[in-house]
C-alpha cells in the first residue's frame, strides 16, 4: 500500500494543487468540459426523448442509440472528431463526450413519459386538455423523477469519460494520471495514484450531488416507489 500512501502525500502538497497545470487547473478544465458536454447532451437527448415518449413510439430508436454508443470506443470518437471539419481544441472533446451523454437522457425521458399511467392521460384528455397541455401539465411533471435520474447518470458518465480527454491533449484531471505514466512508475507512481484518487472522488461526489438533486425534485409520494434507474451504459468505455 506504499503507493497509496505516496499518492496521499502527493495530494497533501499544496504546490501540486496550485502550480500551473496542477490539480486546480485540471479540475477547472474537467468541470468546464463536463458542463458543456452535459448541456449539449440535454439539448439533444431530452427534447427527442420527450417527443418520442409523447408520441408513444420510437422505442426502437432509443434502443439502437444506446447499443451503438455502447459498442463505440470513446477513444475512437475523441481521436476522429478533431481530424474532421470541427478542428482541434475543446470543441471536439466536448462533442465526443456529449454523444455519450445522450443515451441515458434520451432513454430516461422516453421511459418517463411512457410510464405515465394511461388512465391518467385519458382523464386529462377527457377534461379537455389538448396534446400540448397534456404534455406540459400531466406527462412532464410526472416524468420529472425519471428525467432527473437520467441527468444523474449522464453527469456521472461524462465526469468519468472526461478523464479520457487527456489521450488527445484535451486537459482535465486525466492529465495528472497520464503525466504520471509519462514519468514512469518509479518517479510518477505517486502522481498516478493521486490522479486516480482525485478522479474517483470527483465521480463519487458528482453521483452524490445529483442523487440529492434527484431526490429533491421527486415529489414525496413518488419517493417510496422502487428506485427506477434505467440500465446505465458503461461509465467508462
Amino acid at each position, binding site marked *: 500500500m506504499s503507493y497509496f500512501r505516496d499518492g496521499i502525500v502527493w495530494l497533501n502538497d499544496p504546490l501540486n494543487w496550485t502550480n500551473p497545470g496542477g490539480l486546480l487547473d485540471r479540475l477547472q478544465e474537467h468541470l468546464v468540459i463536463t458542463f458543456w458536454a452535459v448541456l449539449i447532451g440535454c439539448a439533444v437527448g431530452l427534447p427527442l426523448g420527450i417527443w418520442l415518449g409523447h408520441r408513444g413510439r420510437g422505442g426502437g430508436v432509443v434502443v439502437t442509440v444506446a447499443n451503438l454508443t455502447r459498442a463505440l470506443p470513446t*477513444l475512437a470518437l475523441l481521436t476522429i472528431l478533431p481530424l474532421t471539419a470541427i478542428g482541434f481544441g475543446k470543441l471536439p472533446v466536448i462533442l465526443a463526450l456529449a454523444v455519450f451523454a445522450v443515451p441515458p437522457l434520451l432513454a430516461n425521458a422516453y421511459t418517463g413519459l411512457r410510464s405515465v399511467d394511461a388512465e391518467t392521460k385519458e382523464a386529462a384528455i377527457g377534461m379537455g386538455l389538448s396534446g400540448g397541455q397534456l404534455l406540459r401539465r400531466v406527462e412532464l411533471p410526472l416524468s420529472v423523477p425519471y428525467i432527473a435520474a437520467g441527468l444523474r447518470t449522464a453527469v456521472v458518465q461524462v465526469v468519468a469519460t472526461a478523464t479520457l480527454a487527456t489521450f488527445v491533449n484535451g486537459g482535465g484531471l486525466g492529465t495528472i494520471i497520464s503525466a504520471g505514466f509519462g514519468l514512469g512508475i518509479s518517479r510518477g507512481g505517486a502522481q498516478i495514484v493521486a490522479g486516480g484518487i482525485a478522479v474517483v472522488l470527483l465521480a463519487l461526489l458528482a453521483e452524490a450531488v445529483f442523487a440529492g438533486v434527484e431526490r429533491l425534485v421527486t415529489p414525496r409520494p413518488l419517493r417510496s416507489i422502487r428506485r427506477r434507474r434505467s440500465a446505465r451504459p458503461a461509465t467508462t*468505455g
Partner: protein
Amino acid sequence: MSFLSRASAPLPLAAPAGDGPGNPWFSWQYVQDNADTIMTKLGFHIGITLETVVIALLVAVPLAVLAYWIRPLTGPILALSGVLYTIPSLALLALLAPLLGATNRATVLIALVLYALLLLVRNALTGLTQVPADVKDAAAGMGYGRFGRLWHVELPLALPGIVTGLRLATVSTVALVTIGAIIGQGGLGDLIMGGFWNNFYKAEILTGTVLCVGLALVLDLALVGLGRALTPWSRRRAT
C-alpha cells in the same frame, strides 16, 4: 512503452507513398502493409476480451447465487457494484498499475474483469430472482435438493438474464480494452492512439475503430446465437 513515450521519440514515418495524395480516412494500402500489426492487435483484443468475459462469468455466477440464497447479501452486493461502477476506467487503471506493473497485461485484464463482473452479477441475479415461486415449489416437491434445484431448474431459467448480462459485458469490454492504450496494452486502441500520435494518420485510426465496432457486433451476434442454442424451450414456446 506507451503512446506517451512517443513524444520524445523521433518523428514516426509519414503515410506510405502508395496512399495517394493527402491523408485518406481509409487506405487499403495501409491495411496490406501493416497486416501483421493489425492481426496482432486484433488477436490481442479478442484474446483479452474472451479471457475477461470467461473469468468474470466464473466469478459472477457464484456471487449471484450467493446473493440469491442469502437475501441479506443482495443489497450490499448490488450497492457495492453500483459504487465500483462509478469509478472511471482510467482511474481504476491508475490505482492498479503501481501494484501490478505499468506495462502489464494483467493490469488491464483485472480492471476489465471488475467492470464486466458488475454487469454480470446484476443480470444473473435479476434472472435468478425472476424464477417463479411455483416452479421452485414444484422442483422441491419433485425431490430436488438445493443444488439440484439450482443446477436443473433455477440456472436454466435464469439463462436469458445471464446471456443479456454476457452481451452487455462483452460489448462494453470490447470498447473498454482500448483504454489500455495508455500503458500500451490496448489492442486495437493502440492502433487508434498510434494513428493519432503518428501525424494524425487517419487510415490507422479508422481501421482500429472499424475493427473494434465490428468485433463488438460479431461477438454480440455470436452470443445471441449461443443464447438461442442454450434455451431451445423458449423458441419452441414462441412458435
